[in-house]
């Protein structure tokens, strides 16, 4: 379906959780550059796919990262090998300060290889974090917490980022800021992005993968998917009139891509 070499290859990924067969043989590739959007209605298994790749939940099938099989490896080893993860709920440690959240993310492996944690990049993208270094992360706004979560993966050299719904629950202006930051990040490192906000997907993604009923229903250039009103409606359950007229200014509580079936 897609030409060229891929960075991450997912083959026949299956996950059973609590008796339900959430993923039933998901296969797709993530190309070497740019943003790959993982789309689909609520509850279709997008987050589960990311967590299965990371080894947080047991899965069968095969996942190769840069040619190496990684399924079943401990999460911390995968992350150390250059797979950065920004989870859906941001995973910011509320009781720790911003500085402590960042310090925790510094990887010893990268320090030993002579690569210091890249605070320059982090503070260039998110200057606010420098000012708030001593503040408890739990007292930050949602957008600021998202910055901390992104900053944590940017401190270390990563080969791929897995980012789960970075704009969820954020105010429109903050959605724009986070999207802008992500687009700059994507120039340095490829991203596999789960995102419900189609305006964000349109701005960032080069490739799209659509999950439906535990399988991949569509895989190809994002522009092809979003350019076709019928396809977008059929696969994602959203009217394209809504998504084309709403730019990044849509309210955060009802993102344009919110599936009606939810």
């Amino acid at each position, binding site marked *: 379906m897609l030409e060229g070499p891929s960075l991450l290859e997912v083959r026949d990924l299956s996950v059973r959780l609590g008796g339900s067969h959430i993923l039933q043989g998901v296969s797709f590739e993530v190309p070497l550059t740019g943003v790959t959007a993982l789309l689909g209605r609520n509850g279709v298994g997008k987050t589960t796919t990311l967590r299965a790749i*990371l080894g*947080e939940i047991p899965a069968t099938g095969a996942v190769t990262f840069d040619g190496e099989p990684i399924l079943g490896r*401990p*999460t*911390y080893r995968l*992350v*150390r090998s250059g797979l950065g*993860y920004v*989870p859906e709920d941001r*995973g910011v*440690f*509320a*009781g*720790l300060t911003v500085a*402590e959240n960042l*310090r*925790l*993310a510094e*990887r010893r*492996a990268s320090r030993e290889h002579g690569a210091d944690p890249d605070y320059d990049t982090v503070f260039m993208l998110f200057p606010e974090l420098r000012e708030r270094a001593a503040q408890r992360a739990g007292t930050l706004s949602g957008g600021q917490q998202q910055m901390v979560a992104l900053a*944590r993966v940017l401190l*270390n050299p990563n080969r791929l980022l897995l980012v789960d719904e970075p704009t969820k629950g954020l105010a429109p202006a903050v959605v724009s800021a986070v999207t802008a930051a992500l687009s700059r990040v994507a120039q340095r490192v490829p991203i596999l992005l789960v995102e419900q906000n189609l305006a964000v997907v349109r701005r960032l993604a080069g490739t799209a993968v659509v999950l439906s009923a535990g399988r991949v229903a569509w895989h190809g250039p994002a522009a092809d998917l979003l350019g076709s009103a019928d396809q977008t409606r059929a696969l994602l359950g959203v009217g394209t009139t809504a998504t084309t007229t709403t730019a990044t200014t849509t309210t955060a509580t009802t993102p344009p891509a919110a599936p009606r079936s939810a």
Partner: protein
Amino acid sequence: MSTIVLLTATGLGLAALYFLVAAGLSLVFGLAGVLNFAHGLFLSAGAYATWWAAPHWGFGPAVAFGVACAAAVGALVELVLIRPLYRRPTEQVLVTVGLSLAGVALLQAVWGADPRPYPRPQWTKQVLTVLGARLPADRLLLLGAAVVVLAGLAAFLRFTRHGLVIRAGVENRAMVSALGIDVRRSFTLVFAIGGGLAGLAGSLGGVYFGSVSPGQGASLLIFAFIVVVIGGMGSVAGTALAAVAVGLVQQFVNYYGTGGAGDVCVVALLAIVLLARPHGISGRVTA
């Protein structure tokens, strides 16, 4: 007045003992999610190791030996028994309960079920006069040890990378792994620290009680669990506060009320705290 001072000192001594046992229990539960019923065994290991070593090496080195033995037992239990069962909490509880029973039986088989007189250094038998009350020095020994441990533990958690990993892991250990950190190494460390602290409680508790017996650990463990729940899982400061509250309530009520009423009051205190603050006095509502 002197009675109140004496009761306070004795209550604080008891609180110190509860704190030393409960601090490790709380960190182990907070970080690793393990309800460790074998924690009393760590205490017994420390007590018996000190009891055995004191006649040969003197009291100070014997306490260090007891703490080291208990820490080693703690690390070993985590590596051998708990580690294979991290995704199976029911089996974990069974294995720690089984281990605590087996440990008591083992101690009985080797040194008998009767309490053995504990070697008390001469200076702990001294009596000090504070505010008109005559206080046995061993109460202050326990209290001093607990304060030093509290300060040391707080500094360790606050200023070291291991401490940072532990604090973060108590909040969300999956996320710690997702940052590339082998959080299970911290589990072993926390078991060793918890074991060492319980061992110290055993070593010094022997001085406090005057004897050492196989069942000592298990009976202290019940109150330590209550302290952990009142204090909030995974919080060292909360544990210290709760230990003081439980120790004082128990001493005062047992003295002024009928014998045993203090223990009932402690359980009542637990119920009240759980009703008012289900996550303990320092617990976060979202935890």
